[in-house]
Every structure is written in C-alpha cells, then in structure tokens.
C-alpha cells in the first residue's frame, strides 16, 4: 500500500497544516466581506472585541461553545469509527422531546439537581435511539449512513413541528413551543466564574451544562484512546476489513459508535433548552448540529482540538452578533459562509497544501520528512 504523502513532524501535521487551512478559509471569508463593501480587518477586530471584550461577551462565547462541543464530539466519535454522522442536527432536535417530557413532568416537584440528571439521561437516550435506526440499517442492510441520517433530520424536524404546534403546545397559546419551565428545570448560571476575574456580566445564558460538555470531552478522549471499545472503533474506522479479520463485530461496533454519537448530540439540547430558553421551541437547534461537522474537522477529531474549535465558533457566533450591529451589511449568516469555508479547507481540501509544505520541509532537511526512507524503498 503506497501512501501518497511522506510523513511530516507531528507539530507540523497537527499544528501547522490546520493553521494554514484555517487561515486560507478566513482569507477567503475576508474576500466575501470585501465583496460586500466592508473592511475585513475592521470586521475581524469588531468580531474579536465582541466576543472577548466584555464579560458578557465571554459568557455568551462560552455558552455557544458548549453547544458546539457536544455536536463536535458527536461528529468526531462517529468519524473515528469511519461513519459520517450528518444527523447530529436531527438527533439534537428530537432529544428536545426527551427533555420536554422530563422537564414538563418534574419541574414543579423536583429541584434542578434532580431534574438535570434525569434530563441528561432522557436527552442522551432519545438522541441515541434516533441514531440507532440509521446505524442498524447501515450495519445490517448496508444503506448509506449519510443518506439515512439526512433523511432522519427531516423526519425529526417534521415530528417536532407536529408536536410543537399540536400536543406539546399549551392551550390558548399561539407560539409553537412548550410552556415555559418552572424553576425546577432551570440550570444554574456559571457567570460567577467569569465575575471572579473581575468582569461584569449583565445577563448571559452560560450555565452548568458547560461543565458537562467539558466532562464529556474528557470521557470521549478516555473512550477513544484508553478503552478497548475505542480501539475497536478506531480499527474499524481505519480499515473495516482488518477489524472484521480481528474478530470485531461490525454490527456491534457501528451501532455502539452511532448511539454514543447520538447521545452526545442529544445532550446538546440541554444547553439551549434548560440553560437559556426554558422551553422547547421550533428549530431551537438552528444549525448547531452542522456546525459540529466544522468543529470536529477543525479539531482534527481530538477532544482538545474540538474544545478549542468550539470556542472559536462560539466566538464567531457571539462576535458575529456584535458585527451585525456595527456593519448592517454583514448579518450573522456570515458565520454560515465561514463554517462552509472551514469545512471546505480543513475537511475536503485538507491535503491541498501538504505537498508544498512537505517540499519545503524536504528542502530544509530531507531526513525529517523521511525522504530517504522513501527513496530507499524505491517507491
């Protein structure tokens, strides 16, 4: 098996190349800003200031990042197993149903610290079950998981719209959403952490699910790199044939990986539903599941990278909102372009600059890129 590319030192592989890809994505985004007739550098300054300039900005940035950590981890877990879970959006959306059931039943009787664990279980369970069917179809019937998960996104959206304009809507209300939760289903805010550093926060939705997201990032790292199951998943992702030869059950590994992925996607719903809006409304996921694809690719499927990438996207969301105030020509949809460009350059075109960088490294020190070994083999 000939690998098309020789090896680079690890820091170049995990640091330099993603950085270059990312920079190119942002440069192209800068051109779009210029096309709109604004100054991209000024836009960047406003964006960063909006995200980190004030305590409230930081809290909002972390609030958005929480959501993206969950969806990023969800995409990454599936990707380690060689599965492209494009259904994170739908799994998170339908998990809102699990949370709604828990919160609407218990918010008047239980305190938040009992409702929260129940809601975690419910959201994870519903998300996992929604991923189970595509996983089963992929494993047993060979239907392509990308297509089935896309279909399941639409089916989830239809079900949620049906429920939110019908059974879940309180009588006499016009808005397509559940009734507002009582105090028993409201998550405590984490803003005091930022206030410890002297910043002032007016009102920001940063809440305890941020800590849950970080814990999940750690657990995913543990799962992927420190357990037998994670090893099997990576093996299957790398080479399904080798995994089969090693006696790993294809059905079991696909279904387990997808259910974990679905569970992580489902937990994402906790953050906006219980931490911010205190109800389940139509389209509350609003594309966060798809952002997860960009986050996972940018973080190179590693939890640390995902947390960092999620922070970056949190910054884009928060800063983008500020930007829309300052530059009316640039709405928040600018982020959708950036997201697309990041997916393009960090995902589909990730190898575009690699040959040039390898050539550059080779000209400095042939040994460092293993040129001799390649030459020795006569490849």
């Amino acid at each position, binding site marked *: 098996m000939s690998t098309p590319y020789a090896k680079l030192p690890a820091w170049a592989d995990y640091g330099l190349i993603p950085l270059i890809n990312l920079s190119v994505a942002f440069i192209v985004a800068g051109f779009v800003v210029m096309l709109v007739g604004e100054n991209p550098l000024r836009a960047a300054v406003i964006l960063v200031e909006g995200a980190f300039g004030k305590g409230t900005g930081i809290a909002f940035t972390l609030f958005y990042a929480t959501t993206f950590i969950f969806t990023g981890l969800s995409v990454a877990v599936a990707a380690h197993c060689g599965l492209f879970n494009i259904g994170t959006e739908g799994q998170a959306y339908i998990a809102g149903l699990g949370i709604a059931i828990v919160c609407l039943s218990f918010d008047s009787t239980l305190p938040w610290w009992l409702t929260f664990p129940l809601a975690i279980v419910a959201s994870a369970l519903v998300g996992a079950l929604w991923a189970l069917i595509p996983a089963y179809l992929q494993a047993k*019937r060979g239907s392509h998981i990308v297509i*089935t998960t896309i279909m399941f996104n639409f089916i989830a959206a239809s*079900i949620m719209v049906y429920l939110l304009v019908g059974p879940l809507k309180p009588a006499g209300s016009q808005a397509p959403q559940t009734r507002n939760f009582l105090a028993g289903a409201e998550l405590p805010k984490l803003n005091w952490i930022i206030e410890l550093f002297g910043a002032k926060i007016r009102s920001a939705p940063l809440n305890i699910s941020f800590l849950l997201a970080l814990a999940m990032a750690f657990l995913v790292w543990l799962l992927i790199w420190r357990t037998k199951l994670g090893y099997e998943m990576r093996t299957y992702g790398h080479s399904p044939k080798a995994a089969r030869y090693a006696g790993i059950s294809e059905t079991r590994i696909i279904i387990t990986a997808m259910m974990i992925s679905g569970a992580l996607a489902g937990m994402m719903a906790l953050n906006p539903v219980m931490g911010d809006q205190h109800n389940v409304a139509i389209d509350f996921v609003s594309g966060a599941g798809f952002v997860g694809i960009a986050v996972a690719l940018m973080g190179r499927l590693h939890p640390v990278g995902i947390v960092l990438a999620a922070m970056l996207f949190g910054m884009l969301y928060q800063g983008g909102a500020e930007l829309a105030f300052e530059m009316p020509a640039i709405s928040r949809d600018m982020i959708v372009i950036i997201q697309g460009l990041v997916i393009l350059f960090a*995902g589909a*075109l990730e190898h575009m600059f690699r040959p040039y960088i390898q050539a550059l490294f080779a000209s400095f020190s042939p040994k460092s890129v293993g040129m001799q070994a390649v030459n020795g083999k006569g490849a």
Partner: protein
Amino acid sequence: MDIFNAIIQVLDSTVRLSVPLLLACLAGLYSERAGIFDIGLEGKMLVGAFAGAAAASVFHSALIGLGMAVLISVAFALVHGFASITHRGNQIVSGVAINFIAAGSTIILGQAWFQQGGRTPALQPGERFEAITWPGADAIRDVPIIGPIYAELLSGHSILVYFAFAMVPFTWWVLYRTRFGLRLRAVGENPAAVDTAGISVAWLRYRALICTGILTGFAGAYLSMVQNGGFVKDMTAGKGYIALAALIFAKWKPVNAMFACLLFGFLDAASIRLQGTPLPIVGKVSVQFMQALPYVLTVILLAGFIGKAIPPRAGGVPYVKER
C-alpha cells in the same frame, strides 16, 4: 366533475412541483453515475436560483438570468470537483461545505446588493420565463375530459418545464447510447478499467460534474424565475435532499428518476391540497406527515424493503492512479 377538476389541479401542481426535483435529480445522476457523490445539489440549486434572479433583475433579461444561474452553479460544481477529484478530498465533506457556502453567501450578497432582507427585487414580466399556451388550448378548454387535460395539464407551463421533461429521454440517450455515457457509467463502476483504456478519469469526472452544474443551474433558475418571481433566502428548502432521495429511489436510472420525482411532487401537491380537509378512511392527515413521507419512503427503500438500491460501485471513492 368537481372531483375531476380537483384531480387535474393536483396533477398540474404535481408537474410544477416536481420540475426542480427532476432537474436536480438528473443533475445528481450525472455525477453519481461518474462515481462522485453529490450532497451539494441543494447548495448549487440555491446559488443558481440567486444568480438567476439577481442577473435577470439587473439586466432585465430572463435568458441572461438563466445563463448566470448555470454559470455560477457550474462554478460551484467545479469547486466540488477540485476538492474531490483533484485533491481527492472526502466528497461528502466537500458537498456539505458547498451547501453552507451557498446558504450563507446568497443571503449576505443578496442583502448587500439589493437591501431587501436577502430577497432579490421582484421580477418584472420580461425578466422571468412566462407560461407557454399551446395552440388551440383556449378553444378546447370546455371540451369535457380532454379539454382540461390539454389546456391545464399539458399547456400553460414555462419552457423550463418542458425542458426538464425533455432532459429525461436525453439523459437516457446520453448515458446508454453515446460513448461519453458508456465511459461515464464505467468510471462510476470501475475507474481503473477506464484508466487502463487510456481515458482520463479526472477529466471524465469533471465533465460529469459540469453536466451536474448546468442542470442544478436550471433547477435553481426554475425556482426563482418561474415558480417564484424572485429569490427568497433558503428557497430550496431541502429540495436538493429530496432530489437526492429521489435519485436513490430511482436506483440511479433516468426514467425511474422522473417517476420518483413525480411521486414526491405529487406528495407535496397533495399535502397542500389536503391541508385541513379530512380524507374518507384515514381522517385528517397532518401536513407534517405528508412532508416527511418522501424521506420515510426513501429510508424504507434503503432498508431494502422495496427492492434494493445499489449505488454505483466506485461512488464516493477518490481515484488514485496506481504507482
């Protein structure tokens, strides 16, 4: 007679609603048959719709609009090709990226250029494709049965509708009766064999993607310049994905694709028609159920309960020349 008229009306809107699906579905057929998965149909339709409506309203010409729609859509198809053929990137990742870039840039540029909240200006009569009335349609409109069928169902559509349906036999002919089509199918099944025969796999796949771009451009132009008098943000609303579903449903065959798109178009038309009216046996059908039906049907098909959908064998795999 009322029931008959109602049926004609539903079928008429079936035709109208299935045209964008059909164009996008045939577009996907070219690329997937050449071994390139294309999730980006949705995005290419969207940029086509935007470019078409924007150019038509600026240059006051429907034809320039259509040309622009095709041009921009092909450009996006080439980006997909650049990522997935030249750089052997993941085709699905690239398609997803294209959908996002399309969704974001149409809104941002639309707002910046026209300042109407992401819409393009409403198209004037000369700037959109008008309905064509067939000869004698008005004369025989009152003839029972044949009259309405001729006047309502067949006549009175825009040129793009007839183009879409003409593309079905044309695509069949290209795929199964030309050298290009034979090679296109071969490259989707076994690119190494095509390479061995001395034909460039990359160039063949690029040409397939250009066909895809042209047809998604038409599909987008239909949405913004025929169905709607201008571009509205996110106006494709998942049609690209339904087209993808239809493509699978059709098992990657052109004539089947037409029937699949008509079926999905019919479900859409029926759901609009049946909104709120109770049906005889089943009672009131919810709109959401009808909207979800194409997706549910596709999943059932994919699960292998209605025949088996076997994709082109080399689909999704970047071709690496042996070294």
